[in-house]
């Protein structure tokens, strides 16, 4: 899958921990390929996490975020089975979304 998002959310003691691995080249625009042709910048600009439809984290990423970005964060509340949504948009306007549930 081109724009795969892996999400893993667990809850313990009233706090939910969300880990996500997003498949994306995150090209900074500073590198050249092996033919010395510059690789144009291509990176995720905004990524948003929701819990049962409520936004729990908005991330703004620049070209300095590593390829296939990983992110881990926590929020208060959440119970097993709750819906976790992830969506992103990159600088070329490509998007991807993913639905998951708290374990």
């Amino acid at each position, binding site marked *: 899958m081109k724009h795969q998002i892996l999400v893993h959310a667990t809850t313990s003691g009233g*706090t939910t921990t969300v880990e996500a691995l997003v498949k994306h080249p995150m090209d*900074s625009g*500073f*590198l*050249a390929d092996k033919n010395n042709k510059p690789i144009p910048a291509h990176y995720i*600009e*905004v*990524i*948003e996490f*929701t819990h*049962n*439809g*409520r*936004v*729990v*984290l*908005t*991330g*703004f*990423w*620049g*070209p*300095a*975020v*590593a*390829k296939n*970005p*990983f*992110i*881990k*964060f*926590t*929020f*208060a*509340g959440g119970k097993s089975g709750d*819906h976790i*949504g*992830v*969506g*992103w*948009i990159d*600088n070329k*306007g490509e*998007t*991807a*979304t*993913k*639905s*998951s*549930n708290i374990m």
Partner: protein
Amino acid sequence: MQNPDTAQPHFPKRRQVLTAVAAGGAAALVAPRFAAAAAPTVRPPSAAIYPKAAFLRRSEEGALKSLYGMSTASSSTEVKVDAPEIVVNGAEVPVAVDANLPDITGVAVLAILNPYTLACAYKLPPGTGPAISSRIKLAQTTTVVAVVQSGGALSSASKQVKTTLGGCG
């Protein structure tokens, strides 16, 4: 586990139709079986909220000014930034931020000597913790600064990360 995003549109199988009709449950034909879960639709965020200008700044002051309207952050022991002392490859440097401050609304990670100073920024609604880990690229040996916005003030912590190979070319 049900996954509404990857699941194909659900068409009832013939035997399900027959069972449903037999049960008199005509409504079951209209609604997909798992509609009861009422999973919220996930939409990608709007690119309009992206603080593009902040990501084009080439200094800490410029990036903070553009992002938060304040150009300086006071160094605070309540903010923690965890990154390796030395990395072989700057292309993937794990950076973990944490803070022990009230009313945190924003977290930003800056790499001072990168072409563009700001690496990533996060907007935290109430309830979301400031402990955020992600991986960034470093062009060279540089100071990594974590900035936390709480109650309208900016607090920061920094850590020197030595790279033996750059990640930004």
